[in-house]
């Protein structure tokens, strides 16, 4: 099973997400994570999808995505030339005895506390998937009450821009 990060530049149209998600389901491709948002250009959105392909060539996925009329560009982001970030909000159980240990972990992972209650902390962490997963492992013994996360966000390194390139064409 291999994972790939695809970055889709799409027209911001109603139903677009259904079209993309439906295509993945229909063609038997698995979505590991999905992040959608507007871009610096009005009317255009970016979808970052982590897809795992099993037996199927990734090429089929990108070709099928390219057939969607509202998809303007599909780029596979290679790990070596890409910056990837996950973003998580974690609600951890704490009490007087454990709070300082949790705060130590927060410092160590360069995470941030964004809300404090007498029996819990809300912690924000960003970073590569591996780092975030490691952080969760550390927090688990204290009791994670709630966890929410974005899909992976990814962008190519250097000054090149997918939107600029597409708009120039």
């Amino acid at each position, binding site marked *: 099973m291999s994972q790939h990060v695809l970055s889709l530049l*799409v*027209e911001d149209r*109603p139903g677009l997400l*259904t*079209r993309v998600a439906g295509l993945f389901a229909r063609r038997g491709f698995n979505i590991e994570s999905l992040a959608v948002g507007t871009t610096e250009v009005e009317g255009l959105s970016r979808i970052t999808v982590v897809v795992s392909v099993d037996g199927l060539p990734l090429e*089929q996925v990108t070709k*099928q995505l390219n057939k969607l*009329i*509202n998809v*303007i560009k599909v780029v596979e982001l290679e790990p070596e030339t890409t910056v990837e970030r996950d973003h998580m909000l974690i609600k951890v159980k704490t009490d007087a005895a454990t709070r300082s240990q949790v705060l130590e972990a927060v410092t160590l992972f360069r995470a941030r506390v964004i809300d404090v209650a007498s029996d819990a902390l809300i912690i924000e962490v960003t970073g590569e998937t591996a780092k975030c997963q490691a952080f969760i492992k550390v927090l688990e013994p204290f009791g994670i009450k709630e966890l929410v996360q974005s899909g992976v966000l990814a962008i190519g390194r250097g000054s090149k821009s997918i939107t600029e390139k597409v708009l120039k064409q």
Partner: protein
Amino acid sequence: MANEVLTGAQAIVRSLELLGVTDIFGLPGGAILPTYDPLMDSTKIRHILVRHEQGAGHAAEGYASASGKLGVCIATSGPGATNLVTAIADAHMDSVPLLAITGQVNSTSIGTDAFQEADIVGITMPITKHSFLVTKAEDIPGVLASAVLIATTGRPGPVLVDIAKDAQNGKAEFVWPPRVDLPGYKPVTKPHGKQIQAAAQLIKEAKRPVLYVGGGIVRSRANLELLELAKIIGAPVVTTLMARGAFPDSDPQNLGMPGMHGTVPAVTALQRSDLLITLGARFDDRVTGQVKTFAVGAKVIHVDIDPAEIGKIRFADVPIVGDLKEVLTELNAELANDLKGTKPDIAEWWGFLNDLRTRYPLGYTEPEDGKLSPQFVISRIGELSGPEAIFAAGVGQHQMWSAQFIKYERPNSWLNSGGAGTMGYSVPAAMGAKVAQPERLVWAIDGDGCFQMTNQELATCTINNIPIKVAIINNSSLGMVRQWQTLFYNSRYSNTDLNTGTDTMMVPDFVKLAEAYGCLGIRVEKEEEVDAAIKLAMETNDRPVVIDFIVGRDAMVWPMVPAGLSNDAVQFARDERPVWEDGEEE
């Protein structure tokens, strides 16, 4: 000059007129009523009122497939729209340029489970090339122009335009031509020069080349370029079910149809080939059989306008994305220049194939029950009608026999439902074809099962003076399914008797049904009556004709490669497999 202000409904009619639409098949209802009003006044568009929206969809498909033009159908919201779904799916599978327009509830009511609301854009998302929901009158011209562009260019396909009732009732300035803004839609039609050279190189080196011709040749109108290529290289040609007529059957290089019910020479040619020159064909499982044992010794040149088809099922050594007409024009020039009138030497290959042709010609045995042989009836329809006629088949045994025993000489003369296999396609598709090409003789060759799914369109045909001919190949059963029961389920005939035969309950009596619909109904039970009935049908043009041919129910479609097996297992007749002279039988 200020632009004219039109209602959305008027804008729909005007846009369609300006887009060159002349015929529409449909049936009105609440959510599309605003549009039916100005439609009544159009002098450029003929609207044909069907009896079921599925019929409108297939009629638009038949119209498109017979003429190469866009087919248009229209329906109301909710059930009207869902009745189009089967035809839309069918058009999607067979790459038919189709525009489906549906009314939708008021935009303010969408999402409230309003009366006759159905999310038809959502329902058809997986089976359309694209779809639009229009909620504002001013968007109508742009959306319709975009829809037609998408449906008819690149790989053709169905596009749905769902228009809210308040958008039809609203008013807006009518701007033409509208802005068509589709930044994500850029079909590639021009091939890559390097790939053309690579293809020419493989062709020159091949010892056992085959032109594996698919429906793309028909859609691209590239039959003459194909003929030229075939003459330049002298290779054998096989035409898929969707490509019957793309290459003349009378040409000695044509080996017939490959696949599950293909000829032994066509199946074997693909299987033993060292180069598949694949032109607008998509390695469908009905053609390849078990993929891993399909044509194992062959390199592949694959030409398709849809990049996703290339490499989907079979690796392509030389992938070429482009429109076949352009690709073949360039390839022919390249080859003509390289070969300078010589031909690759493939005499040995032809020797092998010609031997198969002599030993395993298409044939059939007479039914044991003394009834008509369906293959004979279909052959006679083909022979008496000639190559200028159009033949639209249903789905089942009669479809396969029509593909095998009628000789096709031109593209767009053979219409059928290949990818979806939609029973009920034939009568409405023939109706649509006759509307597109009124000068041509148009046959619906149908099964007694299929016919009962959409025969209500005979009313449409009679009332609108669309004199199609229907040949029911009546074996009183769901024949194709029955054949599988005979072969694979120990002849246990679970739910395949239709009781439409002369020695059964005969419900319905197709002759009486035809007469009730204002058609000429004829029953034929004896061989000597066959020609006279066909001729009478051909001469009768003041109303549709239905001939009920009572045929033997045990006739089977041969050859056959059982589903999922290797093509090497092709059976020439029941339990009879070809014998390979070289003792090479795998």
